[in-house]
C-alpha cells in the first residue's frame, strides 16, 4: 500500500468532518472518491495531502506519517495534487509553468545564478510534458490567455511534471464542458501511463467519469466510508445508489 | 492622565483609519494629513469666530463645526481619486494615499504658511479640575468625554442602525453585499467621508491644547499605525484599545524611562505583528 489512512477523525469544534475513515491506495490503482456534498471529501483530500493535522488516527504515505506536513514536504516525498478550482500562474507561459515544476523536482529552485534557458534537462522535460498534454503548440502562451479546459489540463500537467508516485486530483473535470470531459480524462490517463505514474486518486462528481476510469471506488457519507470496492460492486450497493449515485444526472 | 488625552485623539484618527480599512480594505496613510487639515481648519474657524466677536467660551462650537465641515474633503477624495482603484492591488491603493500625504502637506503649507498657528490660550478659559491627585485642564476632560461619546456612537451606528448593517455587510463580503442590492459606491463614499471626518475632528479637537504644525500629519501616521496594528486592522474596538495602549504606554515610558518613549511603541508593534498579526481584535472587522 502506498497511501493509507487509519481511523482518521477530523473535527472542527463540534462539527465532525471525518469520523473514523480507513482506506488504502495501492500501486497501479485508479481510485475515485465519491460522495454527496458535505460527505467530507474535501476534508479527506486535505488529510491525504498532509494539509491538515488530524484529531485522531493516522495517515501514512510510503510508511511515513504525513499528517500536517504541508504541501512542500509532500511534493518532495512524491505525492502531487491538483485543485478543484483551477490553480495557475496567470502571468507565466505554459512552458514556464511546467519548467517551474521541473525546477522544483530537480532541486534547482535555489539556484540564483544559473541560467534557466540553457539548462537542457529543464527545457526537454517541460516540453515533453507539454507535448503529452497537447499543450506544445501553446507553450509560449501566457497562462491567463488559455481557455478554461487548457488551464485545467495545465494545472494537472504541472503536477504530473513532478513525476510523483501518486497524484490526487480534486475534481479534474469540474469546470470543463461535458463534451470535453472524456477528452481531458483520456489525455490524463495516457499521460500518467507514459510518465510512469501509477496511482491516481480522484474526487469526482461525474459518474460517467468515475465508472469509466476507476479500478476502485470509495463512497463517503457523513464522514464515514460507506462503501469501498470495484465499480461493479459499488453500482450494486443500494445504499450508495441511494445516497450518492441516485442523482447522477445532475452534475455538480 | 496626559496619556488618556492623547489616546482620545489617537482613537479618533485610528477609528477613521479602521472604518476605511474595514470596509474598503484601504490602509489610508493620509489619515494623518486629514488630522492636520482638521487642525488648521479648526484654528481658522475659531479665529474667524472670535474675530467676528464670538464669545470665547463658545469657541468649541466653530472648532467642531470647522473640523467636521472640512471632513467633506473625504467625499471629494473618494469620488475624485480612490474610486478608480478599488479593483487594483492594495499596493496601489496604499500608494495613492501616499500621494495624498505628499499633496496635502504642501496644500496646507500653501494655504496657511509654514509658521505654527494656534488658538492661543482659549482653552485655558475652561479652567482646571483635580483628577486622581493631578491637575487636568477641563478642556482635556471635555475632549476625552467627546471621544468616548463618539466611540459609543460609532458602536451604536455600526451595530444598531440600518446603515451600520450595510457597512458591516460590505466589510464582510463585497460580492454578497452587492448581490443583496447594496449600492457599494454610495457606501464607500459615505464610509470614507465619515472616516475622514473622524480624523479632521480629531485634529480640530486637539488644536486648542497645542499648535498646528505642518509636519503634525506625518508624525501622527506612525502613531496611528501603531494603534491599529496593536488593536487589529479594521476593528473599532481595536482602535479604542490600541489608542489607550499607545497613549498610556507612551506616558508611562516618559515617566519611567524617557529614552524608550518612541522605540517602545515600535517594539510593541513588531511583537504584536509577530505574535498575533491580526492584533487583539483583528478578527472582528468593523
Amino acid at each position, binding site marked *: 500500500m502506498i497511501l493509507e489512512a487509519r481511523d482518521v477523525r477530523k473535527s472542527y469544534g463540534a462539527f465532525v468532518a471525518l469520523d473514523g475513515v480507513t482506506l488504502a491506495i495501492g500501486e497501479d490503482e485508479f481510485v475515485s472518491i465519491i460522495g454527496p456534498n458535505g460527505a467530507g471529501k474535501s476534508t479527506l483530500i486535505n488529510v491525504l495531502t498532509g494539509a491538515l493535522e488530524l484529531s485522531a488516527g493516522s495517515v501514512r504515505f510510503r510508511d511515513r506519517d504525513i499528517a500536517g506536513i504541508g504541501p512542500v514536504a509532500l511534493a518532495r516525498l512524491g505525492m502531487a495534487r491538483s485543485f478543484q478550482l483551477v490553480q495557475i500562474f496567470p502571468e507565466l507561459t505554459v512552458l514556464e509553468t511546467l519548467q517551474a515544476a521541473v525546477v522544483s523536482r530537480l532541486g534547482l529552485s535555489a539556484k540564483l545564478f544559473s*541560467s534557466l534557458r540553457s539548462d537542457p534537462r529543464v527545457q526537454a522535460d517541460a516540453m515533453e510534458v507539454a507535448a503529452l498534454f497537447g499543450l506544445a503548440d501553446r507553450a509560449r502562451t501566457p497562462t491567463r490567455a488559455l481557455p478554461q479546459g487548457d488551464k485545467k489540463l495545465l494545472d494537472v500537467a504541472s503536477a504530473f511534471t513532478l513525476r510523483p508516485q501518486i497524484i490526487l486530483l480534486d475534481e479534474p473535470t469540474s469546470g470543463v464542458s461535458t463534451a470535453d470531459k472524456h477528452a481531458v480524462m483520456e489525455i490524463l490517463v495516457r499521460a500518467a501511463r507514459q510518465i510512469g505514474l501509477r496511482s491516481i486518486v480522484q474526487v469526482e462528481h461525474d459518474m460517467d467519469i468515475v465508472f469509466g476510469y476507476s479500478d476502485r471506488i470509495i463512497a463517503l457519507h457523513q464522514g464515514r466510508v460507506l462503501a469501498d470496492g470495484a465499480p461493479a460492486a459499488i453500482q450494486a450497493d443500494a445504499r450508495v445508489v441511494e445516497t450518492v449515485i441516485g442523482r447522477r444526472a445532475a452534475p455538480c | 492622565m496626559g496619556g488618556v488625552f492623547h489616546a482620545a485623539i489617537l482613537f479618533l484618527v485610528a477609528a477613521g483609519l479602521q472604518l476605511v480599512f474595514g470596509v474598503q480594505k484601504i490602509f489610508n496613510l493620509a489619515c494623518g494629513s486629514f488630522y492636520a487639515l482638521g487642525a488648521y481648519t479648526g484654528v481658522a474657524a475659531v479665529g474667524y469666530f472670535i474675530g467676528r466677536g464670538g464669545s470665547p467660551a463658545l469657541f468649541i462650537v466653530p472648532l467642531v463645526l470647522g473640523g467636521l465641515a472640512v471632513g467633506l474633503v473625504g467625499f471629494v477624495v473618494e469620488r475624485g481619486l480612490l474610486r478608480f482603484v478599488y479593483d487594483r492591488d492594495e499596493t496601489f491603493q496604499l500608494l495613492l494615499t501616499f*500621494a495624498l500625504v505628499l499633496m496635502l502637506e504642501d496644500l496646507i503649507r500653501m494655504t496657511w504658511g509654514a509658521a505654527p498657528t494656534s488658538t492661543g490660550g482659549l482653552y485655558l478659559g475652561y479652567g482646571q479640575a483635580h483628577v486622581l491627585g493631578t491637575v487636568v485642564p477641563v478642556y482635556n476632560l471635555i475632549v476625552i468625554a467627546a471621544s468616548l461619546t463618539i466611540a459609543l456612537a460609532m458602536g451604536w451606528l455600526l451595530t444598531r442602525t440600518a446603515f451600520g448593517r450595510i457597512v458591516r455587510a460590505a466589510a464582510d463580503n463585497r460580492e454578497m453585499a452587492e448581490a443583496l442590492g447594496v449600492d457599494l459606491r454610495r457606501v464607500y463614499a459615505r464610509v470614507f467621508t465619515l472616516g475622514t471626518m473622524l480624523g479632521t475632528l480629531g485634529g480640530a479637537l486637539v488644536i486648542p491644547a497645542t499648535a498646528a504644525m505642518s509636519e503634525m500629519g506625518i508624525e501622527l501616521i506612525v502613531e496611528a499605525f501603531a494603534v491599529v496594528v496593536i488593536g487589529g486592522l479594521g476593528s473599532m474596538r481595536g482602535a479604542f484599545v490600541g489608542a489607550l495602549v499607545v497613549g498610556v504606554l507612551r506616558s508611562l515610558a516618559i515617566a519611567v524611562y524617557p529614552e524608550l518613549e518612541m522605540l517602545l511603541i515600535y517594539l510593541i508593534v513588531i511583537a504584536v505583528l509577530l505574535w498575533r498579526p491580526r492584533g487583539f481584535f483583528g478578527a472582528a472587522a468593523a
Partner: protein
Amino acid sequence: MRAPFTVLAAVGAALLVLPQFAAPYYVTLMLPFMAYAVVLLGFNLLFGYTGLVSFGHALFIGVGAYTGAVLTTRFGVRQMEVVLLAAGAAAAVVAAPVGALCVRYVKIYFGMLTLAFGMVFYTFLLKFYRLTGGDEGMRMLRPSLLGQEWAGFSKTAYLIGPYYYFSLAVLVLATGIMWRIVGSPFGLCLKTIRDNPVKAESLGLSVPRHRWYAFMVSAVYAGVGGALLATPTGNVDPTLAYWTQSGNVVFMVLLGGFSSFFGPILGAFAFIFLQDAVMSVFPYWRLVFGAVLAALVIAAPGGLMGLIGSIARRSPFEAARS
C-alpha cells in the same frame, strides 16, 4: 527582439560619454540616480518578481550608507570595493532575521511589518547618538577606487570622473547579476510565488524560503546602493532611513514600471531628474510629486515602461510588422 538591444546599446554608449558632454552638475546628479537604480533593481526583485511590497526598504539603504561611513571614518577602510562588499554583507546580516520574520506575512501585513522595522532602525540611529552620531549622522570619507586615491582630483572632478565610472560599473554589474537572477530557476520560482503561492507550494516550492532569499538579495542591493549613495553626499544621516524615503523607493519603481526589468532603472532616473527640475522652480514640489504619483496609480499603473510599451505597440510601424 532587436529593438530593445539597440536601445540598450545606445543608452550604454550615452552613459559612457556623458561626462564628456553634460554639465558637471547633471553628471553629479547621475550618481544618486545610479545608486538608487541599484537599490531599485533589488527592490523590484521583491516587488515586481515576488509580489511583496516593502515599506521599510530605506532601512537597508541606511544600513549600507552607515556601513560606508563607519568603515571610512572609524576603521580607516577607504577602498570602495571593500566598502560595497561590507555594505552588502551588513545588509544581509540585518535582513536575515528581519526577513525571516517579515516573509511569514504578505500584502499589507508585510508592508506594515517592514515599515515598523524601518522605523525601529530610524529611531535607533536617532537615539544611539554615540554610536551613530544621532541626527548629525556621520561623515563618509572619500573612498579610493580600484586602489587609486585620485588625490589630484578635486571632489567635483573625482565625482564626475572616476566615481561616475565606478558607479556606472557597479550599476552595470548589478544589472547583469540581476538579469541573471531573474532568468535563473530561482527567478522563475519567485514568479510562481508571486502569481499563486498555493499552487507554488503544491509544486514543492517553499514559499517562505524563496521569499526570504528574495528579501535578502533585495536587501544586499539596497545596502550596496546605500553605500554608493553616501559618497557624493559625504555624510550619512537618519533621514536616509525615514519611512517617507521608503515611500519614495516604491514611488520610483512605480514611476518606471514594476513589471519591466528595466522599469526601476528608468524610474530612478525620472524621479531624480524630475525632482531636480521641479524643486528649483516650485517650492511646493511635493504637491507636484503627489499629483504625479496619483495620476500614475490611477491612469498608468504600468509606469513609464508601460506607457512606452503601449505607444510602441500602437505605432503604425509595429502594427505593420505584426
